[in-house]
């Protein structure tokens, strides 16, 4: 096993990997940009190196700087987390050249899966089901012919794409020309590659993905699916395992196909095969993510495994310690992605200082977090602060535990989307498992109608009592005024200007 591992990431995933290192007796090396000196992953690591300014391209995305730290810190391996360099085959190759183990698949597997059309060609040969459509980039004439053949609605997609960019739904032949041009130019702008392909548009699809794991000895297993249909603007917000519509038979079929995909790519380490599922529960290969997913904790809960530990073992050359038949799923897990964004104001990002943080714990609750009280959330990086994961004997208990944990969760100073999860978890369609990728947009279009007559009144009373306490705190010399049992735990905070004023008053005496 490695003695020292560099974690080329930040935020909650860096913390999660550093924790795994400590659990395995591996020393962890963190890297940080100018604005991350005080980040939690730096606090938790055994080593930490500064790698440059806030801009990711000059720090977390900079291959040379990362490899330089690997050399200086004598790290034997690099865990890329997700995002940043995690799916960058050039980086994986540079690691190999520098004699540092990249904790993930081979550069060849990553390259094969990196281009959607190439992946598609390989997968078709492996007998993987696809949404009917083209296998490669099309010119406009070919696109027109194919659309006629498979029938509208159809979808145009960027070959190099991801995250919803360069995608256009086309409802009828009249719209095809302009949509094609738009998709091409967006693809060019976003990915520097204007190749566009076309496929059948699936109505009310679900997004279900299958976790696979391979070792370097040709063994690949599947670890159950995740339902990821709850999305806002094509971004996942909540994920769960198992999926409410996947039964044992469907899981086995989907899992076996996922393993076939991985084997066709000579894949090892953690990977995820994304599928689109239609209303008849047919599923179609979408893409493969060649890294650890944000939502891996739900799989860890239902399998009882630790995927990051497993990544380390497999990367160091060990065989998978189990076979497919040893994997037993139990219970149900759901993850909420806690973002720094304001649900009451169009989900605008909300960076800033976290002035108060009260975190839930207790049975069935796991919290992977990159924040702490007093920390300032920087404006430069993505707004994922923490993941709150609930486990239960069944889906209902998992939902109810999450509602309980969200009731306890309090992030003060900045806005977070915790109220969104409360809405989702109480929604009858969600509770019935009636999900598709349009679910959340439909829910958010409805007015929120939570009303409570009592609590607004208590909010007013509370505010008045706080104000009274405050008034006292500003009046020096007022004593014994508050009717509080015992001594107050912490006196009301004194604002900075007030402290300065006092300091000046003292100085002038």
């Amino acid at each position, binding site marked *: 096993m490695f003695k020292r591992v560099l974690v080329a990431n930040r935020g909650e995933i860096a913390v999660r990997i550093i924790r795994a290192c400590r659990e395995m007796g591996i020393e962890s090396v963190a890297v940080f940009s100018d604005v991350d000196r005080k980040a939690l992953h730096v606090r938790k690591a055994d080593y930490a190196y500064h790698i440059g300014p806030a801009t990711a391209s000059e720090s977390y995305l900079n291959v040379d700087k990362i490899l330089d730290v690997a050399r200086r810190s004598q790290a034997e391996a690099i865990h890329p987390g997700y995002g940043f360099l995690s799916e960058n085959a050039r980086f994986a190759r540079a690691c190999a050249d520098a004699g540092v183990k990249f904790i993930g698949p081979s550069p060849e597997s990553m390259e094969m899966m990196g281009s959607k059309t190439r992946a598609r060609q390989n997968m078709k040969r492996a007998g993987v089901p696809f949404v009917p459509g083209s296998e490669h980039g099309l010119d406009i004439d070919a696109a027109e012919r194919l659309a006629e053949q498979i029938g509208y609605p159809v979808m145009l997609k960027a070959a190099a794409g991801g995250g919803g960019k360069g995608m256009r739904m086309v409802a009828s032949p009249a719209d095809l020309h302009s949509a094609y041009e738009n998709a091409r130019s967006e693809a060019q702008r976003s990915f520097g590659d204007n190749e566009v392909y076309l496929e059948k548009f699936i109505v009310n699809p679900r997004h279900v993905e299958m976790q696979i794991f391979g070792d370097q000895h040709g063994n690949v297993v599947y670890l159950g699916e995740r339902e990821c249909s709850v999305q806002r603007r094509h971004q996942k917000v909540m994920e769960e395992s198992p999926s409410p519509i996947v039964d044992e038979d469907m899981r086995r079929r989907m899992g076996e196909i996922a393993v076939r995909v991985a084997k066709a790519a000579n894949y090892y380490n953690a990977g995820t095969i994304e599928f689109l599922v239609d209303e008849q529960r047919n599923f179609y290969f979408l893409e493969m993510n060649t890294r650890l997913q944000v939502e891996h904790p739900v799989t860890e809960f239902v399998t009882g495994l630790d995927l990051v530990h497993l990544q380390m073992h497999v990367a160091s050359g060990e065989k998978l310690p189990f076979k497919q038949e040893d994997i037993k799923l139990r219970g149900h897990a759901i993850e909420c992605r806690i973002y720094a964004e304001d649900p009451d104001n169009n989900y*605008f990002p909300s960076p800033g200082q976290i002035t108060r943080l009260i975190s839930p714990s207790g049975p069935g609750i796991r919290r992977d977090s990159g924040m702490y009280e007093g920390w300032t959330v920087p404006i430069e990086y993505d707004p994922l602060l923490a993941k709150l994961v609930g486990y239960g004997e069944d889906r209902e208990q998992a939902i109810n535990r999450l509602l309980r944990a969200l009731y306890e969760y309090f992030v003060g100073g900045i806005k977070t989307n915790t109220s969104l999860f409360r809405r989702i978890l109480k929604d009858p369609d969600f509770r019935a498992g009636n999900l598709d990728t349009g679910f959340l947009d439909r829910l958010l279009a409805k007015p929120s109608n939570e009303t409570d007559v009592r609590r*607004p009144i208590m909010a007013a009373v509370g505010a*008045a*009592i*706080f104000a009274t306490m405050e*008034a006292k705190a500003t009046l020096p010399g007022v004593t014994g005024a508050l*009717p509080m049992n015992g001594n107050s*735990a912490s006196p009301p905070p004194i604002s900075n200007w007030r402290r300065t004023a006092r300091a000046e008053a003292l100085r002038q005496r």
Partner: protein
Amino acid sequence: MTYDVVVDGKTHQVELARGDKTWLCKIDGQEMEVDAVLTARDVLSVLVEGKAYEIKRERSLQGELHMVIGSARYAVEVQDPRSLRTRRAVAGSEAGPQKVKAPMPGKIVRILVNEQDEVKAGQSLIVMEAMKMQNEMKSPKDGRVQKILTAEGSTVNAGDTLAIVE
């Protein structure tokens, strides 16, 4: 002590008087006995006739005040009688020039209009980026762009005025 407390836009009058170990409270004319203790910083434990409430206070750096009770979060404004007039004056005005303020700290990516341009309510004026997300600042009303107070590429703080529409 008497406060006017605005909770999510609705004003309540709260009178507080100190009882033996509790507060005697009158809210909108209704009396109640309130046992309130500060447990941790910004966390009040409140008991009213056996019913328990944990009330958390949150003050954002922009000065907004919220009370959080369980999962519910209320925007709150406390006006004590003396400062009542001034606060009200700031709050009101819907007509006249309106400021377009940055809702978060971030970078100005693009400015989509020029000073003196006629704009519609809801029309995008400025694109800001923060946390890898681009967001459009929209015109609060039909009118004319009186002033643009920022430039492309500049960094702004939450609450900064970016433009004025009259």
